[in-house]
């Protein structure tokens, strides 16, 4: 059976792509963010994953409102990035792990998750930039399976439902008849809000409490909140913490915290980073 080694949780913002492109990693504004990543890469060098399952949210590249899935799972041979409207340079394509894609799809449908299967799929900055932070040379040493959660069109899936999705994905990975070493990557959040008079809202207390909860005895702490309550606490885009929840749920009951970083702000966002190892 496949081995689920652990999870990486990180924020994403398009500006990271610009910063990478312009080589600003050591710039005073960006350094506190980028400096969080060498320990992650060290952990990955030890973990040696073959496959990364990525929980992320699309920002209007692959999905539009004509067909907006709640949960979608990629089953493509390859995943390309594309222009998202800002003409930011694109990263190389990713190779899909189609065996795992279809295994996940079989298991999830069997577990009564009503997923949308995507045999073609563009992946946006929420997918590509975290990958580029984990592997800066962009010579991806892993195959991937994207799992996308809707954060564009309300109603969003509840935090409790996202937790259950993560649990089901974790079970499926562990039941995959393969010698592969698998890591789960969750990207989004933490607190930020781009729209409305409350734009620029950040909530450090909530973020820290949320990060703590993931390594506590009650890792599903955030599932007690409704989506509007989470928006109130974390901002309209802070709701992307749903990706962190699904990732944490995939890792099973107990995890060990290997690394953590938290920095305010990058762009409009409170940037969180965690490495959680399965135990």
């Amino acid at each position, binding site marked *: 059976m496949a081995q689920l080694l652990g999870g990486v949780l990180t924020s994403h913002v398009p*500006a990271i792509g610009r910063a990478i492109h312009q080589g600003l990693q050591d710039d005073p504004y960006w350094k506190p963010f980028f400096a969080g990543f060498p320990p992650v890469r060290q952990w990955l060098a030890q973990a040696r994953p073959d496959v990364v399952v990525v929980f992320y949210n699309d920002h209007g590249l692959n999905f539009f409102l004509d067909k907006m899935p709640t949960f979608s799972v990629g089953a493509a041979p390859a995943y390309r990035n594309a*222009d998202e409207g800002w003409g930011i340079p694109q990263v190389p394509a990713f190779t899909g792990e189609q065996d795992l894609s279809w295994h996940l799809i079989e298991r999830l449908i069997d577990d009564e998750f009503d997923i949308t299967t995507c045999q073609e799929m563009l992946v946006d900055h929420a997918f590509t930039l975290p990958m580029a932070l984990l592997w800066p040379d962009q010579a991806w040493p892993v195959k991937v399976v994207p799992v996308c959660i809707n954060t*564009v069109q*309300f109603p969003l899936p509840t935090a409790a439902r996202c937790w259950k999705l993560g649990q089901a994905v974790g079970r499926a990975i562990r039941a995959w008849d393969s010698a592969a070493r698998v890591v789960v990557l969750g990207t989004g959040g933490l607190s930020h809000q781009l729209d409305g*008079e409350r734009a*620029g809202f950040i909530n450090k207390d909530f973020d820290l409490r949320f990060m703590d909860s993931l390594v506590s005895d009650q890792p599903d702490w955030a599932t007690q909140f409704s989506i509007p309550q989470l928006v109130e606490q974390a901002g309209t885009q802070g709701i992307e913490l749903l990706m962190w929840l699904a990732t944490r749920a995939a890792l099973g009951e107990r995890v060990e915290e290997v690394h953590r970083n938290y920095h305010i702000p990058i762009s*409009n966002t409170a940037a969180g980073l965690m490495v959680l190892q399965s135990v």
Partner: protein
Amino acid sequence: MTTPEIPGIPGTTLFDGRLARKGYALNRMCYSFNDAANRAAFQQDEAGYCDRFGLDDEQRAAIRARNVLQLIAAGGNVYYLAKFAGIFGLDVQDLGAQQTGMSKDAFKARLAAYAH
């Protein structure tokens, strides 16, 4: 509309069915700006491009004004609006400054202050 009332969060709009219905044409236009050729077409003939997507008067006025709060009130979703803003080289801090009525520097300073 029968969408359950969402507890009000000051200065915050949840993009629910009501707004999705109102903003569909506007969001479809902004979604098209993923493509550089469409961004260029908009810049060459802004009114004609809005015609093509069937924007209503409120949406046209908000587009002309480049006003984010007006665009949101007209049904715009921030994920698609960000692509419209990209045409003018505006980033999310520019949008934040405009929506909060601050200078960009003041807005950035407020963001940084959350660290403490």
